[in-house]
């Protein structure tokens, strides 16, 4: 029996008032990948913050194997901060404790290896703000790799990323899976969810959880996205487009 | 304790009395807009930036009013060109103000050796006000009243939603420019009485306190003028009684009134 990497039971989370996310129950085993779907404000980020331990559950339980790594969207990071790609990867070693000491040689080696894995070995000295969007995402992924966490939480890692970077990132995901790590990836890309082991749909509560074949049906998607959902093909498997109300505009799949 | 009526009776206090009435009217009206349009720092900076100009003018016989207006309007022009970003207190502005204050004090103490001028220019004077100061304050009060009538609704619309104001066909950029310019001139007008460092006592504190009481823009303006006049006169009285420049008492009174009202209205809500 594979150990549970992430587990939630009747989880409800709020920001002080009534819970903004409730009735969440799911279990993820080591080596499984989960695509977390839902509209903006539906609770994806709230769930991640609860998994990170930033928010106390209002109800129910949540447990994560070890300290999860977090790859946020690059808009949250500072582009004018004077750090290189290597410096960013090196930040991952802070998870090893002893933050008051300078990094050790094996810390630096780990950062270099991680940059190599994400294809940024040649860009190690480039300032973070001068990297392309896809490269920045890969640098943040390198930081997560250095952290060597059993569970990784990724917030829309492929949005706005060029195809080359996206391909690299996908192959890193496959490697991480093979290493027995669990990945939770939030996304607006409904069709891409088919490539994951499991799908979790959130709209202020858990709408569905299970393999993509079971979850990605019209009824579930409509319950998740409401009016944001446009279904392209009535017959056969649902081909769906979700409309976002901010940066990107409609996302097309297939 | 001297009688408060001295303020109106005694001839040597008459200038100060009239000045405070004029500044109370101007300050009441303008501080409402300054608070709504988030121009508190700008009004303070416009006053402080004039300091070296005032010192130089004071010592060399040029009218300090002219020097002050030149600097303040120049500062307003610079802020306007920098756009909305210029109104935020960036590092450049902070250093500019430090340089202005340091430059001013060196000019005053060591170049012109007019040491006493520093206190007067920074905190105001009770007895040293002249007819020119009164004229400028009267002009500002009249302009503030006219502008509030003519541009008030435009300013309120921009304050409420800066992005859609142009879509409503309002001359947002022009209205903005006029407001900045008017605030800059008004800051200079207040300097003789309350000092370059404390113009916010006239142009921010009454409006901030009025904001706690008013639910509409007309009410905000009314409360703001009432508070500005009350605080100004009370501060003037304290200055007369304790032999102080008027700026500090007006500032302390204004801040105290704000604190009391903030606590009082907090409980009611």
């Amino acid at each position, binding site marked *: 029996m594979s150990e549970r990497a992430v587990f939630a039971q009747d989880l409800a989370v709020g920001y002080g008032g009534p819970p903004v996310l409730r009735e969440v129950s799911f279990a993820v085993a080591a080596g499984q990948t989960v695509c977390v779907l839902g509209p903006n404000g539906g609770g994806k980020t709230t769930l991640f913050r609860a998994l*990170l331990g*930033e928010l106390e559950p209002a109800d129910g339980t949540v447990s994560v194997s070890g*300290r999860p790594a*977090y*790859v*946020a969207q690059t808009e949250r*990071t*500072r582009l004018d*901060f*004077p*750090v290189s790609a290597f*410096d*960013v990867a090196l*930040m991952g070693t*802070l998870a090893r404790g002893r*933050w*008051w000491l300078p990094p050790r040689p094996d810390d630096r080696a780990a950062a270099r290896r991680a940059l190599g894995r994400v294809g940024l070995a040649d860009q190690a000295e480039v300032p973070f703000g001068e990297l392309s969007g896809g490269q920045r995402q890969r640098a*943040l992924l390198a930081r997560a790799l250095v*952290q060597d966490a059993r569970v990784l939480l990724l917030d829309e890692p492929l949005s706005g990323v060029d195809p080359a970077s996206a391909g690299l990132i996908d192959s890193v995901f496959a490697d991480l899976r093979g290493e027995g790590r669990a990945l939770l990836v939030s996304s607006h890309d409904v069709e891409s969810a088919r490539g994951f082991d499991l799908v979790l749909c959130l709209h202020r509560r858990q709408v569905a959880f299970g393999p993509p074949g079971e979850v990605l049906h019209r009824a579930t998607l409509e319950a998740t996205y409401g009016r944001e959902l446009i279904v392209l093909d009535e017959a056969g498997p649902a081909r769906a487009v979700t409309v976002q109300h901010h940066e990107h505009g409609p996302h097309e799949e297939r | 304790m001297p009688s408060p009526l001295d303020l109106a009776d005694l001839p040597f206090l008459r200038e100060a009395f009239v000045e405070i009435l004029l500044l109370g009217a101007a300050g009441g009206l303008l501080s409402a807009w300054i608070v709504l349009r*988030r121009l*508190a*720092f700008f009004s303070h900076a416009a006053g402080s930036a004039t300091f070296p100009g005032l010192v130089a003018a004071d010592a060399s016989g040029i009218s300090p009013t002219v020097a002050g207006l030149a600097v303040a309007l120049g500062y307003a022009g610079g802020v306007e060109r920098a756009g909305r970003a210029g109104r935020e207190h960036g*590092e450049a502005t*902070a*250093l500019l103000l*430090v*340089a202005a*204050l*340091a*430059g001013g*004090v*060196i000019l005053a*103490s*060591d170049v012109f050796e007019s*040491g006493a001028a520093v*206190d007067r220019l920074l*905190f105001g004077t009770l007895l040293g006000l002249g007819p020119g100061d009164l004229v400028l304050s009267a002009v500002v009060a009249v302009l503030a009243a006219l502008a509030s009538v003519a541009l008030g609704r435009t300013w309120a619309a921009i304050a409420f939603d800066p992005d859609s104001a142009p879509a409503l066909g309002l001359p947002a950029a022009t209205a903005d420019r006029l407001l900045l310019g008017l605030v800059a001139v008004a800051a200079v007008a207040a300097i003789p009485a309350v000092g370059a*460092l*404390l113009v*916010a*006592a006239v142009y*921010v*504190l009454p409006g*901030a306190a009025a*904001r*706690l009481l008013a639910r509409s823009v007309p009410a905000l303006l009314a409360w703001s003028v009432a508070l500005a006049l009350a605080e100004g006169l009370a501060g003037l009285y304290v200055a007369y009684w304790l*032999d*102080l*420049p008027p*700026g*500090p*008492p007006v*500032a*302390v009174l*204004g*801040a*105290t009134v*704000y*604190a009391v009202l903030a606590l009082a209205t*907090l409980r009611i809500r």
Partner: protein
Amino acid sequence: MSGIELRAMLEVVLAGGFCGALGFWVLSERLAYGAESLSHGLLPGLVLAGLAGAPLLVGAAGGAVAAAALIALAVRDPRAGPDTGTAVAVTGLVGLGSLLALAPDAPQRLEELLFGDPLGATDTDLVAAAVLLAAGGAALASLHRPLVATSFDAAGAGALGLRPALVRLALLAMLAAAIAVAVQGLGALLVLAVLVAPPVAVRRHVRTPAATMLAGAVVAALAGVLGIQLSSLAGTAAGASVALVLCAAAAAGAALPARA
């Protein structure tokens, strides 16, 4: 070079050195306006210390704490907005400080509290500056990696096991201490320069946080020495002279072409 001037230079080098380094974080964390408000707002503390015969440092520290508390309260009211709330608190405090200082029997000259008095540095002030540099420098060094990670990406730093709130609190504590010590030399109105001017002067010419901090410390120390020398030669106010040299350094550094 008299003993008094040497002491003044030592004080500005010690205190300025730390402030010039800390300034990188003041800019990174957008704390310039907060630092300015804090330094103006501690004026009543300075005056009260003078009236009570207590050391200036005590008044500065107490004044800084009181100002921080008042500003924090004023800022919380959503009706005014943080800009207005801070302006109310600071204007009131500056008014209070100057009112107390201008009362006829006050021993302290208000001008020195506003614009600094490096030539009047006491042994206590020198010791305080030395302690600030040593302890503050050690704190900055040991907190370096958490500060970098938190400033770059607070959410990610939290995931790495750091506590961004505590890191920021440590930074604010260092800022308050730096202002309390440096206000002796530069005064409540000018002390901001020693925090903001050095990083502005060097940031286009160096590439890492550590380099910016070291270069900032050097620039601050040099500006302090130069300022005192100039004030001695030209007979100008010492604190204001140091402040002007700092501002000139910032202008020069911002105007020079950046290194590739």
